[in-house]
Protein backbone atom coordinates (compact mmCIF):
# COMPACT_ATOMS: atom_id res chain seq x y z
CA UNK A 1 0.00 0.00 0.00
CA UNK A 2 1.51 3.28 -1.16
CA UNK A 3 -0.24 5.23 1.59
CA UNK A 4 1.49 3.31 4.39
CA UNK A 5 5.06 3.99 3.24
CA UNK A 6 4.54 7.73 2.86
CA UNK A 7 5.53 9.81 5.81
CA UNK A 8 2.71 12.37 6.00
CA UNK A 9 5.22 15.16 6.68
CA UNK A 10 6.88 14.46 3.36
CA UNK A 11 3.71 14.27 1.34
CA UNK A 12 3.80 16.93 -1.35
CA UNK A 13 1.55 15.43 -3.98
CA UNK A 14 -1.61 13.35 -3.63
CA UNK A 15 -4.88 12.72 -5.38
CA UNK A 16 -7.20 15.64 -4.58
CA UNK A 17 -10.41 14.74 -2.76
CA UNK A 18 -12.41 15.95 -5.70
CA UNK A 19 -10.67 13.57 -8.08
CA UNK A 20 -11.93 10.00 -8.33
CA UNK A 21 -9.62 6.98 -8.46
CA UNK A 22 -10.53 6.13 -12.06
CA UNK A 23 -8.13 5.05 -14.81
CA UNK A 24 -8.04 7.82 -17.42
CA UNK A 25 -9.65 7.22 -20.81
CA UNK A 26 -7.70 10.12 -22.32
CA UNK A 27 -4.81 9.46 -24.67
CA UNK A 28 -1.40 9.41 -23.00
CA UNK A 29 0.02 12.93 -23.26
CA UNK A 30 -3.32 14.73 -23.41
CA UNK A 31 -3.68 17.79 -21.15
CA UNK A 32 -7.32 17.07 -20.23
CA UNK A 33 -6.08 15.16 -17.19
CA UNK A 34 -4.15 18.23 -16.02
CA UNK A 35 -7.14 20.50 -16.51
CA UNK A 36 -9.47 18.05 -14.69
CA UNK A 37 -7.08 17.87 -11.79
CA UNK A 38 -6.84 21.65 -11.51
CA UNK A 39 -10.63 21.94 -11.34
CA UNK A 40 -10.78 19.22 -8.68
CA UNK A 41 -8.01 20.87 -6.63
CA UNK A 42 -9.68 24.28 -6.78
CA UNK A 43 -13.10 22.94 -5.78
CA UNK A 44 -11.51 21.11 -2.86
CA UNK A 45 -9.46 24.12 -1.75
CA UNK A 46 -12.59 26.29 -1.87
CA UNK A 47 -14.44 23.65 0.12
CA UNK A 48 -17.31 23.56 -2.39
CA UNK A 49 -17.16 19.96 -3.61
CA UNK A 50 -20.50 19.26 -1.94
CA UNK A 51 -22.22 22.23 -3.51
CA UNK A 52 -20.72 22.02 -6.99
CA UNK A 53 -22.68 20.79 -10.02
CA UNK A 54 -20.73 20.13 -13.19
CA UNK A 55 -21.99 20.05 -16.77
CA UNK A 56 -20.05 17.73 -19.07
CA UNK A 57 -19.88 18.47 -22.82
CA UNK A 58 -19.93 16.29 -25.91
CA UNK A 59 -16.37 15.63 -26.99
CA UNK A 60 -13.42 13.94 -25.33
CA UNK A 61 -14.51 15.37 -21.95
CA UNK A 62 -17.96 13.77 -22.19
CA UNK A 63 -16.86 11.59 -19.27
CA UNK A 64 -15.45 14.46 -17.16
CA UNK A 65 -17.79 13.25 -14.41
CA UNK A 66 -15.88 9.99 -14.17
CA UNK A 67 -12.99 11.99 -12.71
CA UNK A 68 -14.31 15.14 -11.07
CA UNK A 69 -16.17 13.93 -8.00
CA UNK A 70 -19.21 16.20 -7.75
CA UNK A 71 -22.84 16.06 -8.84
CA UNK A 72 -22.79 16.11 -12.63
CA UNK A 73 -25.05 16.28 -15.64
CA UNK A 74 -24.10 15.65 -19.23
CA UNK A 75 -25.26 18.08 -21.90
CA UNK A 76 -26.06 17.82 -25.59
CA UNK A 77 -23.30 19.03 -27.93
CA UNK A 78 -22.69 22.73 -27.31
CA UNK A 79 -25.63 23.21 -24.95
CA UNK A 80 -23.71 23.06 -21.67
CA UNK A 81 -24.00 26.82 -20.95
CA UNK A 82 -27.79 26.59 -21.41
CA UNK A 83 -28.00 23.54 -19.17
CA UNK A 84 -25.79 25.23 -16.58
CA UNK A 85 -28.11 28.25 -16.78
CA UNK A 86 -31.12 26.07 -16.02
CA UNK A 87 -29.40 24.53 -12.99
CA UNK A 88 -27.99 27.82 -11.68
CA UNK A 89 -31.36 29.58 -11.93
CA UNK A 90 -32.93 26.89 -9.75
CA UNK A 91 -29.93 26.64 -7.37
CA UNK A 92 -28.40 30.15 -7.27
CA UNK A 93 -26.24 29.30 -4.24
CA UNK A 94 -24.62 26.24 -5.81
CA UNK A 95 -21.35 26.32 -7.76
CA UNK A 96 -22.26 25.48 -11.35
CA UNK A 97 -19.61 24.95 -14.01
CA UNK A 98 -19.25 23.48 -17.46
CA UNK A 99 -16.15 21.99 -19.04
CA UNK A 100 -16.13 22.25 -22.84
CA UNK A 101 -13.87 21.80 -25.81
CA UNK A 102 -13.50 24.10 -28.80
CA UNK A 103 -15.90 22.31 -31.13
CA UNK A 104 -18.51 22.17 -28.40
CA UNK A 105 -18.10 25.74 -27.14
CA UNK A 106 -17.01 27.76 -30.17
CA UNK A 107 -18.79 25.94 -33.00
CA UNK A 108 -22.10 24.24 -32.26
CA UNK A 109 -22.42 25.97 -28.89
CA UNK A 110 -21.39 29.47 -29.96
CA UNK A 111 -24.86 30.94 -29.36
CA UNK A 112 -25.24 29.32 -25.94
CA UNK A 113 -21.77 30.50 -24.91
CA UNK A 114 -22.12 34.08 -26.13
CA UNK A 115 -25.60 34.52 -24.67
CA UNK A 116 -24.71 33.01 -21.29
CA UNK A 117 -21.89 35.58 -21.15
CA UNK A 118 -24.16 38.39 -22.36
CA UNK A 119 -26.69 37.57 -19.64
CA UNK A 120 -23.89 37.67 -17.09
CA UNK A 121 -24.97 34.16 -16.17
CA UNK A 122 -23.24 33.46 -12.89
CA UNK A 123 -21.54 30.25 -14.02
CA UNK A 124 -17.94 29.21 -14.70
CA UNK A 125 -16.75 27.65 -17.94
CA UNK A 126 -13.48 25.80 -18.35
CA UNK A 127 -12.77 26.00 -22.07
CA UNK A 128 -10.26 23.57 -23.55
CA UNK A 129 -8.81 24.91 -26.80
CA UNK A 130 -6.70 22.33 -28.59
CA UNK A 131 -7.49 23.54 -32.11
CA UNK A 132 -9.05 20.25 -33.19
CA UNK A 133 -11.99 17.87 -32.75
CA UNK A 134 -10.38 15.13 -30.67
CA UNK A 135 -13.13 12.60 -30.01
CA UNK A 136 -14.45 12.35 -33.54
CA UNK A 137 -10.99 11.77 -34.93
CA UNK A 138 -9.19 15.03 -35.60
CA UNK A 139 -11.41 17.21 -37.80
CA UNK A 140 -11.02 20.96 -38.26
CA UNK A 141 -12.25 22.99 -35.28
CA UNK A 142 -13.33 26.65 -35.13
CA UNK A 143 -9.93 27.24 -33.49
CA UNK A 144 -7.83 25.30 -36.03
CA UNK A 145 -4.92 27.49 -37.15
CA UNK A 146 -4.56 28.65 -40.77
CA UNK A 147 -2.62 26.04 -42.69
CA UNK A 148 -3.06 23.43 -39.95
CA UNK A 149 -3.68 19.90 -41.26
CA UNK A 150 -6.68 18.04 -39.87
CA UNK A 151 -8.72 15.11 -41.20
CA UNK A 152 -11.20 17.58 -42.72
CA UNK A 153 -8.57 20.07 -43.89
CA UNK A 154 -6.05 17.54 -45.18
CA UNK A 155 -4.10 20.13 -47.15
CA UNK A 156 -4.07 22.55 -44.25
CA UNK A 157 -6.84 24.97 -43.27
CA UNK A 158 -7.37 27.19 -46.29
CA UNK A 159 -8.66 30.49 -44.99
CA UNK A 160 -10.11 31.32 -48.42
CA UNK A 161 -12.62 28.51 -48.22
CA UNK A 162 -12.55 27.46 -44.55
CA UNK A 163 -12.21 30.78 -42.80
CA UNK A 164 -10.22 31.83 -39.80
CA UNK A 165 -9.91 30.62 -36.23
CA UNK A 166 -12.09 32.26 -33.60
CA UNK A 167 -10.48 33.85 -30.55
CA UNK A 168 -13.13 33.17 -27.93
CA UNK A 169 -11.55 34.96 -24.95
CA UNK A 170 -11.19 38.17 -26.97
CA UNK A 171 -14.73 37.82 -28.35
CA UNK A 172 -16.38 37.20 -24.97
CA UNK A 173 -14.41 39.99 -23.31
CA UNK A 174 -16.41 42.52 -25.34
CA UNK A 175 -19.60 41.55 -23.49
CA UNK A 176 -20.70 43.56 -20.48
CA UNK A 177 -22.03 40.46 -18.71
CA UNK A 178 -18.60 38.85 -18.59
CA UNK A 179 -16.88 39.22 -15.22
CA UNK A 180 -13.70 37.25 -15.76
CA UNK A 181 -12.30 36.10 -19.10
CA UNK A 182 -8.69 34.96 -19.37
CA UNK A 183 -6.53 32.67 -21.49
CA UNK A 184 -3.89 30.42 -20.00
CA UNK A 185 -1.86 27.45 -21.24
CA UNK A 186 -1.10 23.97 -19.96
CA UNK A 187 2.19 23.37 -21.76
CA UNK A 188 4.59 23.66 -18.81
CA UNK A 189 4.52 23.71 -14.98
CA UNK A 190 4.77 27.50 -14.65
CA UNK A 191 1.81 27.98 -16.96
CA UNK A 192 -0.13 25.19 -15.25
CA UNK A 193 0.26 27.06 -11.94
CA UNK A 194 -1.03 30.24 -13.59
CA UNK A 195 -3.92 28.27 -15.05
CA UNK A 196 -4.85 26.98 -11.61
CA UNK A 197 -4.85 30.47 -10.17
CA UNK A 198 -7.13 31.61 -13.00
CA UNK A 199 -9.53 28.69 -12.40
CA UNK A 200 -9.62 29.63 -8.72
CA UNK A 201 -10.37 33.25 -9.56
CA UNK A 202 -13.11 32.22 -11.98
CA UNK A 203 -14.86 30.10 -9.34
CA UNK A 204 -14.38 32.81 -6.71
CA UNK A 205 -16.02 35.28 -9.11
CA UNK A 206 -19.01 32.97 -9.33
CA UNK A 207 -19.23 32.42 -5.58
CA UNK A 208 -19.23 36.19 -5.14
CA UNK A 209 -21.92 36.63 -7.79
CA UNK A 210 -19.72 38.66 -10.14
CA UNK A 211 -21.05 37.33 -13.44
CA UNK A 212 -19.93 35.03 -16.19
CA UNK A 213 -16.42 33.60 -15.83
CA UNK A 214 -14.44 31.63 -18.40
CA UNK A 215 -10.90 30.31 -18.42
CA UNK A 216 -9.63 29.34 -21.86
CA UNK A 217 -6.89 26.75 -21.56
CA UNK A 218 -4.59 26.15 -24.53
CA UNK A 219 -4.26 22.38 -24.60
CA UNK A 220 -2.66 19.64 -26.62
CA UNK A 221 -4.09 16.82 -28.70
CA UNK A 222 -1.01 14.85 -29.61
CA UNK A 223 -3.11 12.08 -31.15
CA UNK A 224 -5.15 14.45 -33.31
CA UNK A 225 -2.11 16.52 -34.21
CA UNK A 226 -0.14 13.38 -35.10
CA UNK A 227 2.87 14.16 -32.89
CA UNK A 228 4.38 12.82 -29.66
CA UNK A 229 3.26 14.25 -26.31
CA UNK A 230 6.50 16.18 -25.90
CA UNK A 231 6.36 17.50 -29.47
CA UNK A 232 2.81 18.60 -28.85
CA UNK A 233 3.80 20.76 -25.88
CA UNK A 234 6.46 22.44 -28.02
CA UNK A 235 3.99 22.85 -30.89
CA UNK A 236 1.48 24.51 -28.57
CA UNK A 237 4.09 26.98 -27.38
CA UNK A 238 5.42 27.69 -30.84
CA UNK A 239 2.21 27.89 -32.85
CA UNK A 240 -0.83 28.25 -30.60
CA UNK A 241 0.36 30.95 -28.23
CA UNK A 242 1.16 33.40 -31.07
CA UNK A 243 -2.30 32.78 -32.52
CA UNK A 244 -4.07 32.78 -29.15
CA UNK A 245 -2.04 35.14 -26.91
CA UNK A 246 -2.17 34.36 -23.21
CA UNK A 247 -3.55 37.08 -21.00
CA UNK A 248 -6.38 38.66 -19.07
CA UNK A 249 -9.08 39.79 -21.48
CA UNK A 250 -11.71 40.93 -19.04
CA UNK A 251 -11.39 41.31 -15.31
CA UNK A 252 -14.25 43.26 -13.82
CA UNK A 253 -13.07 45.65 -11.08
CA UNK A 254 -15.04 43.63 -8.48
CA UNK A 255 -13.20 40.49 -9.54
CA UNK A 256 -9.84 42.29 -9.47
CA UNK A 257 -10.66 43.37 -5.90
CA UNK A 258 -11.16 39.77 -4.71
CA UNK A 259 -8.50 38.65 -2.24
CA UNK A 260 -7.48 35.16 -3.30
Amino acid at each position, binding site marked *: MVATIINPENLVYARPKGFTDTPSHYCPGCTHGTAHRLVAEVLEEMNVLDKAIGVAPVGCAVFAYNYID*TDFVQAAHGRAPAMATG*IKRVWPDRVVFSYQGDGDLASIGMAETVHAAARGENITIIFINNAIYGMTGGQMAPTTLPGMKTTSSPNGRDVETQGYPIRMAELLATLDGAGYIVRRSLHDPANIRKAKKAIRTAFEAQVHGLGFSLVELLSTCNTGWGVTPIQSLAWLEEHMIPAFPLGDYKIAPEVAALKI
Partner: protein
Amino acid sequence: MAREMWKGNEAIAEAAVRAGVEAYFGYPITPQNEVLEYLSHRMPELGRAFVQAESEPAAINMVYGAACTGARVMTSSSSPGISLMQEGLSYIAGTEVPMVLVNVMRGGPGLGNIAPSQGDYNQICKGGGHGDYHPIVLAPASIQEAVDLMPVAFELAHKYLNICTILIDGSIGQMMEPVTLPEMQPVIRKEYDWAVSGAKGRKRHLLSSIYLDVPTEEKVNLRILGRWREARENEIRFKEYYLDDAEYIIIGFGTAGRIALSAVRAARAQGIKVGLFRPISVNPFPYKRVEELCKQAQSFLVVEMNTGQMLKDVQVAVRNRVPVRFYGRLGGVMPFPDEFVTEIQEMIKNPGKPEDDPADLWYQRMIAR
Protein backbone atom coordinates in the same frame (compact mmCIF):
# COMPACT_ATOMS: atom_id res chain seq x y z
CA MET B 1 -63.58 31.01 -7.17
CA ALA B 2 -64.67 33.71 -9.58
CA ARG B 3 -65.09 33.11 -13.25
CA GLU B 4 -62.92 35.59 -15.14
CA MET B 5 -62.18 36.36 -18.77
CA TRP B 6 -58.72 35.10 -19.63
CA LYS B 7 -56.76 34.75 -22.83
CA GLY B 8 -55.78 31.11 -23.35
CA ASN B 9 -52.01 31.55 -23.29
CA GLU B 10 -52.11 33.76 -20.21
CA ALA B 11 -54.51 31.45 -18.37
CA ILE B 12 -52.20 28.52 -19.06
CA ALA B 13 -49.24 30.50 -17.77
CA GLU B 14 -51.07 31.49 -14.58
CA ALA B 15 -52.31 27.91 -14.12
CA ALA B 16 -48.69 26.71 -14.35
CA VAL B 17 -47.70 29.27 -11.72
CA ARG B 18 -50.48 28.07 -9.44
CA ALA B 19 -49.41 24.47 -10.05
CA GLY B 20 -46.02 25.41 -8.62
CA VAL B 21 -43.82 25.81 -11.70
CA GLU B 22 -40.42 26.94 -10.40
CA ALA B 23 -38.62 27.65 -13.63
CA TYR B 24 -39.67 28.68 -17.14
CA PHE B 25 -37.42 29.08 -20.17
CA GLY B 26 -38.79 30.09 -23.55
CA TYR B 27 -38.33 31.91 -26.82
CA PRO B 28 -40.84 34.14 -28.61
CA ILE B 29 -42.92 32.53 -31.34
CA THR B 30 -46.46 33.27 -32.44
CA PRO B 31 -49.08 32.14 -31.42
CA GLN B 32 -47.69 31.31 -27.96
CA ASN B 33 -45.95 34.62 -27.11
CA GLU B 34 -48.33 35.53 -24.28
CA VAL B 35 -47.17 32.55 -22.21
CA LEU B 36 -43.61 33.92 -22.27
CA GLU B 37 -44.70 37.54 -21.84
CA TYR B 38 -46.96 36.77 -18.91
CA LEU B 39 -44.35 34.68 -17.11
CA SER B 40 -41.66 37.35 -17.71
CA HIS B 41 -43.29 39.43 -14.98
CA ARG B 42 -45.16 36.79 -12.99
CA MET B 43 -42.20 34.48 -12.27
CA PRO B 44 -39.75 37.15 -10.98
CA GLU B 45 -42.57 38.63 -8.88
CA LEU B 46 -42.71 35.28 -7.04
CA GLY B 47 -38.93 34.83 -6.91
CA ARG B 48 -39.06 32.02 -9.46
CA ALA B 49 -36.77 31.47 -12.44
CA PHE B 50 -37.55 32.98 -15.86
CA VAL B 51 -35.18 33.30 -18.80
CA GLN B 52 -35.98 34.44 -22.33
CA ALA B 53 -33.45 32.23 -24.08
CA GLU B 54 -31.51 33.06 -27.25
CA SER B 55 -33.19 30.24 -29.18
CA GLU B 56 -35.47 27.25 -28.73
CA PRO B 57 -32.51 24.85 -28.51
CA ALA B 58 -31.12 27.00 -25.69
CA ALA B 59 -34.54 27.20 -23.99
CA ILE B 60 -35.08 23.44 -23.99
CA ASN B 61 -31.55 22.84 -22.74
CA MET B 62 -32.13 25.31 -19.89
CA VAL B 63 -35.26 23.27 -19.17
CA TYR B 64 -33.10 20.13 -19.30
CA GLY B 65 -30.70 21.58 -16.72
CA ALA B 66 -33.49 22.75 -14.44
CA ALA B 67 -35.33 19.42 -14.82
CA CYS B 68 -32.19 17.70 -13.50
CA THR B 69 -32.72 19.54 -10.20
CA GLY B 70 -36.16 17.94 -9.75
CA ALA B 71 -37.95 21.31 -9.82
CA ARG B 72 -41.25 21.74 -11.65
CA VAL B 73 -40.09 23.22 -14.93
CA MET B 74 -41.72 24.06 -18.24
CA THR B 75 -41.36 25.69 -21.60
CA SER B 76 -43.84 26.64 -24.29
CA SER B 77 -43.50 27.07 -28.01
CA SER B 78 -45.25 26.60 -31.32
CA SER B 79 -44.64 24.21 -34.19
CA PRO B 80 -41.34 25.46 -35.75
CA GLY B 81 -39.99 26.13 -32.28
CA ILE B 82 -41.00 22.67 -31.11
CA SER B 83 -39.07 21.21 -34.05
CA LEU B 84 -35.99 23.07 -32.82
CA MET B 85 -36.51 21.63 -29.34
CA GLN B 86 -36.54 18.00 -30.44
CA GLU B 87 -32.86 17.49 -29.63
CA GLY B 88 -33.35 18.57 -26.03
CA LEU B 89 -36.60 16.62 -25.70
CA SER B 90 -34.83 13.43 -26.74
CA TYR B 91 -32.04 14.06 -24.19
CA ILE B 92 -34.62 14.79 -21.48
CA ALA B 93 -36.45 11.55 -22.32
CA GLY B 94 -33.15 9.65 -22.36
CA THR B 95 -32.06 11.12 -19.02
CA GLU B 96 -35.49 10.29 -17.54
CA VAL B 97 -36.17 13.70 -16.00
CA PRO B 98 -39.59 15.39 -15.82
CA MET B 99 -40.78 18.49 -17.66
CA VAL B 100 -43.93 20.09 -19.00
CA LEU B 101 -44.12 21.34 -22.57
CA VAL B 102 -46.92 23.53 -23.92
CA ASN B 103 -47.23 23.30 -27.70
CA VAL B 104 -49.50 25.89 -29.31
CA MET B 105 -49.66 24.42 -32.82
CA ARG B 106 -49.77 26.53 -35.98
CA GLY B 107 -50.02 25.88 -39.69
CA GLY B 108 -47.09 24.15 -41.36
CA PRO B 109 -44.88 22.55 -42.57
CA GLY B 110 -41.90 24.91 -42.63
CA LEU B 111 -42.53 28.45 -41.55
CA GLY B 112 -46.19 27.87 -42.44
CA ASN B 113 -48.38 30.49 -40.83
CA ILE B 114 -49.69 31.52 -37.43
CA ALA B 115 -53.19 30.06 -37.79
CA PRO B 116 -54.48 27.14 -35.67
CA SER B 117 -53.53 23.66 -36.85
CA GLN B 118 -53.23 20.12 -35.54
CA GLY B 119 -50.48 19.15 -37.97
CA ASP B 120 -47.99 18.22 -35.26
CA TYR B 121 -49.94 15.36 -33.68
CA ASN B 122 -47.53 12.76 -35.03
CA GLN B 123 -44.45 14.77 -34.11
CA ILE B 124 -45.59 15.26 -30.52
CA CYS B 125 -47.25 11.89 -29.87
CA LYS B 126 -44.86 9.61 -31.72
CA GLY B 127 -41.68 11.04 -30.26
CA GLY B 128 -40.31 13.73 -32.55
CA GLY B 129 -36.75 13.44 -31.35
CA HIS B 130 -34.43 10.50 -31.94
CA GLY B 131 -34.61 7.26 -30.02
CA ASP B 132 -37.36 5.17 -28.42
CA TYR B 133 -39.44 7.25 -26.06
CA HIS B 134 -43.09 8.08 -25.55
CA PRO B 135 -44.09 11.48 -24.20
CA ILE B 136 -47.42 11.88 -22.42
CA VAL B 137 -49.65 14.23 -24.43
CA LEU B 138 -52.85 15.88 -23.18
CA ALA B 139 -55.04 17.77 -25.66
CA PRO B 140 -57.56 20.11 -24.03
CA ALA B 141 -60.41 21.63 -26.08
CA SER B 142 -61.02 24.77 -24.03
CA ILE B 143 -59.11 27.22 -21.89
CA GLN B 144 -60.77 25.82 -18.75
CA GLU B 145 -59.71 22.31 -19.64
CA ALA B 146 -56.15 23.49 -20.35
CA VAL B 147 -56.04 25.26 -16.99
CA ASP B 148 -57.36 22.18 -15.20
CA LEU B 149 -54.77 19.97 -16.91
CA MET B 150 -51.73 22.07 -15.93
CA PRO B 151 -51.30 20.58 -12.41
CA VAL B 152 -52.06 17.15 -13.86
CA ALA B 153 -49.28 17.65 -16.42
CA PHE B 154 -46.70 18.36 -13.70
CA GLU B 155 -47.89 15.41 -11.62
CA LEU B 156 -47.68 13.02 -14.58
CA ALA B 157 -44.27 14.32 -15.65
CA HIS B 158 -42.87 13.73 -12.18
CA LYS B 159 -44.69 10.45 -11.59
CA TYR B 160 -43.46 8.90 -14.84
CA LEU B 161 -40.18 10.87 -15.16
CA ASN B 162 -41.32 11.87 -18.61
CA ILE B 163 -42.19 14.79 -20.82
CA CYS B 164 -45.82 15.78 -20.45
CA THR B 165 -47.11 17.96 -23.26
CA ILE B 166 -50.19 20.15 -23.25
CA LEU B 167 -51.11 20.12 -26.93
CA ILE B 168 -53.30 22.97 -28.09
CA ASP B 169 -53.53 25.08 -31.22
CA GLY B 170 -53.36 28.79 -31.87
CA SER B 171 -57.12 29.26 -31.41
CA ILE B 172 -57.09 28.02 -27.81
CA GLY B 173 -53.95 30.03 -27.15
CA GLN B 174 -55.35 33.25 -28.59
CA MET B 175 -59.06 33.22 -27.70
CA MET B 176 -60.59 34.54 -24.51
CA GLU B 177 -63.22 32.74 -22.48
CA PRO B 178 -64.45 32.72 -18.91
CA VAL B 179 -62.40 30.41 -16.72
CA THR B 180 -62.13 29.50 -13.08
CA LEU B 181 -58.50 29.36 -12.07
CA PRO B 182 -57.46 26.98 -9.30
CA GLU B 183 -56.11 28.12 -5.93
CA MET B 184 -52.38 28.84 -5.71
CA GLN B 185 -50.55 25.67 -4.70
CA PRO B 186 -47.34 25.80 -2.69
CA VAL B 187 -44.12 25.04 -4.55
CA ILE B 188 -43.20 21.40 -4.04
CA ARG B 189 -39.50 20.54 -4.34
CA LYS B 190 -39.09 16.89 -3.51
CA GLU B 191 -35.73 15.43 -2.47
CA TYR B 192 -35.39 13.01 -5.35
CA ASP B 193 -32.72 10.34 -5.13
CA TRP B 194 -31.62 11.22 -8.68
CA ALA B 195 -31.68 15.04 -8.77
CA VAL B 196 -28.54 17.19 -8.73
CA SER B 197 -28.23 19.69 -5.89
CA GLY B 198 -24.62 19.36 -4.77
CA ALA B 199 -23.60 16.12 -3.08
CA LYS B 200 -23.93 17.30 0.51
CA GLY B 201 -24.07 14.35 2.92
CA ARG B 202 -24.86 11.85 0.19
CA LYS B 203 -23.29 10.05 -2.74
CA ARG B 204 -23.04 12.20 -5.84
CA HIS B 205 -25.74 12.07 -8.51
CA LEU B 206 -24.94 11.79 -12.21
CA LEU B 207 -27.54 12.49 -14.86
CA SER B 208 -26.79 11.57 -18.42
CA SER B 209 -28.34 10.05 -21.50
CA ILE B 210 -25.12 8.36 -22.62
CA TYR B 211 -24.77 4.60 -22.18
CA LEU B 212 -21.86 3.39 -24.27
CA ASP B 213 -22.35 -0.08 -22.85
CA VAL B 214 -24.95 -1.40 -25.27
CA PRO B 215 -26.71 -3.90 -22.95
CA THR B 216 -27.05 -1.12 -20.36
CA GLU B 217 -28.66 1.13 -22.96
CA GLU B 218 -31.09 -1.68 -23.74
CA LYS B 219 -31.99 -1.90 -20.06
CA VAL B 220 -32.54 1.86 -19.94
CA ASN B 221 -34.82 1.61 -22.98
CA LEU B 222 -36.76 -1.15 -21.24
CA ARG B 223 -37.05 0.95 -18.07
CA ILE B 224 -38.39 3.88 -20.11
CA LEU B 225 -40.81 1.52 -21.84
CA GLY B 226 -41.88 0.06 -18.48
CA ARG B 227 -42.89 3.46 -17.15
CA TRP B 228 -44.65 4.21 -20.41
CA ARG B 229 -46.62 0.96 -20.17
CA GLU B 230 -47.71 1.99 -16.68
CA ALA B 231 -48.81 5.39 -17.99
CA ARG B 232 -50.69 3.63 -20.80
CA GLU B 233 -52.52 1.59 -18.18
CA ASN B 234 -53.36 4.44 -15.79
CA GLU B 235 -53.53 7.70 -17.64
CA ILE B 236 -56.20 7.34 -20.30
CA ARG B 237 -58.40 10.42 -20.40
CA PHE B 238 -61.32 11.22 -22.71
CA LYS B 239 -64.71 12.87 -22.76
CA GLU B 240 -67.91 11.53 -24.25
CA TYR B 241 -70.95 13.49 -25.42
CA TYR B 242 -74.38 12.13 -26.43
CA LEU B 243 -73.03 8.60 -26.73
CA ASP B 244 -75.81 6.79 -24.79
CA ASP B 245 -78.00 6.20 -27.83
CA ALA B 246 -75.54 7.23 -30.53
CA GLU B 247 -75.50 5.18 -33.73
CA TYR B 248 -72.81 7.32 -35.33
CA ILE B 249 -69.76 8.62 -33.50
CA ILE B 250 -67.47 11.52 -34.32
CA ILE B 251 -63.95 11.37 -32.95
CA GLY B 252 -61.90 14.53 -32.71
CA PHE B 253 -59.38 16.02 -30.28
CA GLY B 254 -58.75 19.59 -29.15
CA THR B 255 -60.31 22.32 -31.26
CA ALA B 256 -61.58 19.88 -33.92
CA GLY B 257 -63.34 17.98 -31.13
CA ARG B 258 -64.84 21.18 -29.80
CA ILE B 259 -66.18 22.18 -33.23
CA ALA B 260 -67.49 18.63 -33.59
CA LEU B 261 -69.60 19.13 -30.45
CA SER B 262 -71.43 22.01 -32.16
CA ALA B 263 -71.90 19.76 -35.20
CA VAL B 264 -73.27 16.94 -33.05
CA ARG B 265 -75.80 19.28 -31.45
CA ALA B 266 -76.89 20.59 -34.85
CA ALA B 267 -77.24 17.04 -36.19
CA ARG B 268 -79.15 15.97 -33.08
CA ALA B 269 -81.56 18.85 -33.78
CA GLN B 270 -82.17 17.14 -37.14
CA GLY B 271 -82.92 13.88 -35.32
CA ILE B 272 -79.61 12.16 -36.15
CA LYS B 273 -78.39 9.90 -33.37
CA VAL B 274 -74.80 11.01 -33.34
CA GLY B 275 -72.40 11.43 -30.45
CA LEU B 276 -68.86 12.68 -29.86
CA PHE B 277 -65.83 10.89 -28.47
CA ARG B 278 -63.05 13.34 -27.62
CA PRO B 279 -59.68 11.88 -26.55
CA ILE B 280 -57.92 14.11 -24.02
CA SER B 281 -54.88 11.91 -23.56
CA VAL B 282 -53.89 11.54 -27.21
CA ASN B 283 -50.76 9.75 -25.99
CA PRO B 284 -51.53 7.31 -24.47
CA PHE B 285 -54.44 7.06 -26.91
CA PRO B 286 -57.70 5.52 -25.64
CA TYR B 287 -57.55 2.53 -28.00
CA LYS B 288 -59.61 0.24 -25.74
CA ARG B 289 -62.51 2.66 -25.43
CA VAL B 290 -62.62 3.21 -29.20
CA GLU B 291 -62.57 -0.56 -29.64
CA GLU B 292 -65.57 -0.86 -27.29
CA LEU B 293 -67.41 1.85 -29.20
CA CYS B 294 -67.19 -0.30 -32.35
CA LYS B 295 -69.97 -2.44 -30.85
CA GLN B 296 -72.27 0.56 -30.74
CA ALA B 297 -71.27 2.64 -33.76
CA GLN B 298 -72.52 1.93 -37.26
CA SER B 299 -69.61 4.07 -38.41
CA PHE B 300 -67.12 6.64 -37.20
CA LEU B 301 -66.28 10.06 -38.51
CA VAL B 302 -62.78 11.23 -37.56
CA VAL B 303 -62.27 15.01 -37.79
CA GLU B 304 -58.91 16.72 -37.52
CA MET B 305 -57.07 19.86 -38.59
CA ASN B 306 -54.46 17.77 -40.39
CA THR B 307 -54.27 15.05 -43.06
CA GLY B 308 -55.46 12.28 -40.76
CA GLN B 309 -52.77 11.76 -38.16
CA MET B 310 -54.95 10.67 -35.23
CA LEU B 311 -57.02 8.77 -37.81
CA LYS B 312 -54.23 6.14 -37.84
CA ASP B 313 -54.66 5.59 -34.10
CA VAL B 314 -58.42 5.28 -34.51
CA GLN B 315 -57.90 2.74 -37.29
CA VAL B 316 -55.58 0.70 -35.04
CA ALA B 317 -58.43 0.50 -32.52
CA VAL B 318 -61.27 -0.08 -35.03
CA ARG B 319 -59.37 -2.71 -37.04
CA ASN B 320 -61.87 -2.65 -39.92
CA ARG B 321 -64.77 -3.66 -37.70
CA VAL B 322 -66.93 -0.76 -38.91
CA PRO B 323 -66.47 1.87 -41.61
CA VAL B 324 -64.43 4.96 -40.71
CA ARG B 325 -64.81 8.24 -42.55
CA PHE B 326 -62.31 11.08 -42.35
CA TYR B 327 -62.61 14.82 -42.74
CA GLY B 328 -59.72 17.24 -42.28
CA ARG B 329 -58.82 20.85 -42.97
CA LEU B 330 -55.21 21.79 -43.43
CA GLY B 331 -52.59 24.49 -43.18
CA GLY B 332 -54.34 26.59 -40.57
CA VAL B 333 -57.90 26.44 -41.99
CA MET B 334 -60.46 26.05 -39.18
CA PRO B 335 -63.44 23.89 -40.13
CA PHE B 336 -66.98 25.15 -39.48
CA PRO B 337 -69.54 22.95 -37.68
CA ASP B 338 -71.62 22.91 -40.89
CA GLU B 339 -68.86 21.08 -42.71
CA PHE B 340 -68.95 18.32 -40.10
CA VAL B 341 -72.76 18.17 -40.24
CA THR B 342 -72.54 17.67 -44.01
CA GLU B 343 -69.99 14.90 -43.43
CA ILE B 344 -72.33 13.21 -40.92
CA GLN B 345 -75.19 13.36 -43.42
CA GLU B 346 -72.98 12.01 -46.22
CA MET B 347 -71.71 9.24 -43.93
CA ILE B 348 -75.25 8.11 -43.16
CA LYS B 349 -76.21 8.20 -46.86
CA ASN B 350 -73.12 6.33 -47.93
CA PRO B 351 -71.43 4.57 -45.01
CA GLY B 352 -68.88 2.81 -47.20
CA LYS B 353 -67.12 -0.42 -46.27
CA PRO B 354 -64.93 -1.14 -43.24
CA GLU B 355 -61.93 -1.79 -45.49
CA ASP B 356 -62.20 1.56 -47.29
CA ASP B 357 -59.23 3.93 -46.94
CA PRO B 358 -60.80 7.02 -45.33
CA ALA B 359 -57.79 9.29 -45.89
CA ASP B 360 -57.73 8.42 -49.60
CA LEU B 361 -61.47 9.00 -50.06
CA TRP B 362 -61.22 12.32 -48.23
CA TYR B 363 -58.29 13.39 -50.43
CA GLN B 364 -60.29 12.58 -53.56
CA ARG B 365 -63.20 14.70 -52.27
CA MET B 366 -60.85 17.58 -51.34
CA ILE B 367 -59.17 17.84 -54.75
CA ALA B 368 -62.49 17.49 -56.55
CA ARG B 369 -63.85 20.61 -54.82
